[in-house]
């Protein structure tokens, strides 16, 4: 039941926040903050109580929804989704806080959309009925679209529409794939169901399996984003308001990676294995391309956006390296990227609020003006370039260790990507914070509100960098279950 509450609280708070803003904008912010906070606490409680549980799902709810199609309202959580939920609610809190002074107009509707997009994302991480999954997958688009199109920057309409079209198109391809799987499962077993655990191990002929896998992969690759399908990302990230960027980079991209781990690999292991060379090439292309593009940006937000392309390349690499080590690295990278890029966007948003520009060329010498903020940016830059001791390093290191086992050239190229990330990270530090200060800027440094957010994210990253074992322990059983599912599916296909 607790899983239902997670969604209901966010959903209802969205409506409340909209209504409350008619009297007082502050009330609306507080409602949003409380709702996400309660969800965070509930999830954390779930983690502390049942993290060690060995059963398949830590917690689940299963209701009949549309019996005519065999559709269930089935939510379930394992270690992997639990961590993703924690990240969701944590970044949700950050998004509310970071908009505290940035968003001054239409506050109620803003929080309405913010809470509903979180509902959709939480739904994606919780759903184990493929119909419900698709439902949540599409549902999170609409509020995100509104966040960009109403509160975004200069080219917001272009960016929002592009984002919507890309994700919707790939999503519909996934829907066709889901339906194909549904009917094939019916042909084999005589049962109409969208249930994840029952669709595992469906017997598919190799050609069909590849096509269906590609349908899923298209949707996840757009979200991830894998390189030729990434062009919506720099626009959307740059044009979105800060909270939107945090959610896009921190959470929406993770839904793509999550989908690959949860659905593509266990449902279509055979086709995914076949697809490995392509996926690896996509992954390293993304790593290098993202890093190079990031280096050549002058728009600060766009720069950070491109670093996401690079980091998520590591996730793709980890998933398609086919060993536990790399997969663990991928999951750690997902979490750390959420924190570090989220933090970076918060700080860039703060800078933009102070300077009214995102242009790196116009910054410089900020260290003397805003020392605490600059220090924080430096920390997140170091996280991005993979400094040991920070979580990102652990993730990328594990991925490289794992990928070394299947392909040395790919690993070498990916390492070059890390090297390139040093360039852009240092460029940020030099351009914005060092050198002469051309403007006699008098700026306020980090406010306590910003300070708390950033400190929490830094603490999280350090924790993951120095002592990641509890987190590893949490998602480890889940990954083993997935691997088990994968091997049963493979066995079923061989039969």
């Amino acid at each position, binding site marked *: 039941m607790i899983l239902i509450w997670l969604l209901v609280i966010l959903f209802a708070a969205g409506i409340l926040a909209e209504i409350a803003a008619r009297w007082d904008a502050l009330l609306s912010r507080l409602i949003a903050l409380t709702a996400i906070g309660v969800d965070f606490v509930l999830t954390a409680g779930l983690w502390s109580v049942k993290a060690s549980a060995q059963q398949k799902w830590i917690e689940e709810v299963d209701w009949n929804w*549309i019996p005519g199609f065999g559709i269930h309202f089935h939510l379930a959580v394992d270690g992997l989704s639990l961590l993703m939920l924690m990240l969701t609610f944590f970044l949700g809190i950050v998004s509310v806080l970071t908009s505290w002074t940035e968003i001054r107009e239409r506050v109620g509707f803003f929080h309405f959309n913010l809470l509903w997009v979180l509902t959709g994302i939480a739904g994606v991480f919780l759903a184990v009925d493929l119909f419900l999954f698709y439902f949540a997958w599409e549902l999170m688009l609409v509020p995100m679209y509104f966040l960009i199109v109403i509160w975004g920057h200069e080219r917001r309409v272009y960016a929002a529409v592009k984002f919507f079209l890309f994700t919707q198109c790939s999503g519909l391809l996934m829907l066709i794939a889901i339906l194909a799987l549904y009917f094939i499962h019916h042909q084999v077993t005589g049962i109409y169901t969208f249930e994840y655990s029952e669709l595992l191990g469906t017997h598919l002929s190799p050609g069909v399996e590849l096509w269906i896998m590609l349908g899923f992969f298209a949707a996840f690759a757009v979200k991830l984003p894998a390189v030729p399908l990434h062009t919506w990302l720099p626009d959307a990230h740059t044009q979105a308001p800060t909270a939107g960027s945090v959610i896009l980079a921190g959470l929406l991209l993770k839904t793509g990676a999550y989908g690959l781990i949860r659905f593509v690999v266990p449902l279509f292991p055979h086709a995914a294995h076949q697809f490995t060379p392509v996926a690896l090439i996509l992954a390293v292309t993304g790593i290098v391309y993202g890093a190079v593009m990031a280096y050549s940006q002058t728009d600060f937000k766009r720069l950070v956006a491109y670093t996401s392309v690079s980091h998520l390349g590591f996730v793709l690499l980890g998933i398609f390296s086919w060993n536990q080590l790399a997969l663990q690295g991928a999951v750690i990278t997902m979490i750390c990227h959420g924190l570090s890029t989220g933090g970076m966007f918060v700080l860039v948003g703060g800078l933009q609020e102070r300077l009214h520009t995102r242009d790196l060329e116009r910054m410089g010498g900020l260290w003397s003006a805003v020392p605490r903020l600059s220090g924080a940016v430096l920390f997140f830059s170091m996280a991005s370039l993979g400094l040991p001791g920070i979580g990102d390093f652990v993730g990328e290191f594990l991925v490289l260790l794992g990928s070394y086992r299947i392909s040395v050239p790919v690993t070498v190229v990916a390492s070059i990507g890390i090297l390139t990330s040093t360039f852009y990270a240092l460029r940020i530090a030099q351009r914005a914070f060092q050198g002469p200060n051309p403007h006699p800027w008098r700026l306020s440094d980090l406010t306590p509100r910003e300070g708390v957010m950033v400190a929490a994210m830094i603490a999280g990253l350090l924790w993951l960098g120095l002592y990641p074992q509890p987190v590893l322990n949490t998602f480890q059983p889940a990954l083993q279950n997935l691997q088990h599912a994968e091997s049963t599916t493979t066995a079923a296909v061989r039969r």
Partner: protein
Amino acid sequence: MSTRDLFALLPLLLIAVSAVLVMLAIALKRDPGLAAGLTLTGLTAAFLSIWAAAGVIPRQVTSLLLVDKYALFYMGLIIASAAVAVSLAWQYFEKHDEQREELYLLLLLAALGCAVLVAGSHFVSFLLGLELLSVSLYGMVAYLTDRRPALEAGMKYLILASASAAFLLFGMALIYAATGTMEFSRLREVPLSGSPFIVLSGIALTLTGIGFKLGVVPFHLWTPDVYQGASPPVAAFVATTSKSAMVALLLRYFYLSGALRNHAVFLVVATIAVLSMCAGNFLALRQTNVKRILAYSSIAHFGYILVAFLAGSAMAAGAVAFYLVAYTVTILASFGVVSVLSRSGQDVEDLEDYSGLFWRRPAIAGVFTVALLSLAGIPATMGFLGKFYILAAGANAAAWLLIVVLVLTSVAGLFYYLRIVVALFADPPEHAAATEVVSHGGVLVLALLAMLLIWLGVYPSPLLNLIRSSLAGLN
């Protein structure tokens, strides 16, 4: 004709009786409120009488009309959508200086024609229903005689509809000449291989007539002009009630006669579907008039419906029915918004007029947003489940090409729906104040439609069960 027959025909009779009553009432006293009230009462009574008729079905009343669950389901849809159109018309014409009561009379007759169509199982009832519908529509489309676009639209519709009716008659004649029967169900027994050319020509010509009414490519040219020229409530009626009736008839005609088993016929309908999806969605991209956008989108939506229709299974018929209900509710809500916002003498139809509407009139813009998302097929609306159902039917029949075209063109479609949404949420222009005169009744109707869209989009089981049971007798 027995009492049971009369019971089976009760919905039809009640609509006819209320048409007569409205006519008498107009003769005695010209009061628009009275006419609209009588019309609504008559439609409500007809709607309720469906349950009375349900007690005696399935029943073949003469060889012309077959009243079964299928017919009653569609009658319910038709009567309900007609009733919504009446209430929209009432508040729309309220704003105009002159209330003209005859509109309701025409609307009732058109609804009667639709009801005959959905129960039709014979070429004669097909033609009767169609002509009853068409002739009333000429009058309704050109109803605002002081507007040039309305007259133009009415004229266009008159000429094209007459021509298509001629094609239809010729097609019927050919089929009759070749087979000696006019009953759909007996056409099935005729081997299509016997005298293929004549029968195929007949089927092609009847398809022309049907395609015209549905407004699918290449018979779609009237759609944008008529939607633009007619008053919004009438456009809503043309787009929903008359087209649903036509689809119901098409389904019955083709399924009973088994025409889809013929490869050439299948190919032709598939081509029409693909062309409609492409043309509708791509032509809408450049429009800036909301009514025309809705018109082009309706061309595309009937392309989608034809995809499900082609899948040709019980599931496909269910998908068609569900999609029609979704489409009807959505289009009624959309045209309802246009109608509710319109000022005296001028419809609010330019995209610019909608700029920043959400910040002026959140409720109405909210309804419009929900309707547009439903048209675009976003989850939590009926439109999504409809599209899902169609894709499922297509996947079940392994019509991959068709559903891939559907997906790709509907992404193009998304683009122009989003354009309207962008306008709704844009920063309001400087001078903007809420100039629209909005009646509470109109907002209430809109709110109900939007709630229906979401409710059935999230919890469709009751409707799905109803549709399943209504299709039992189709095959």
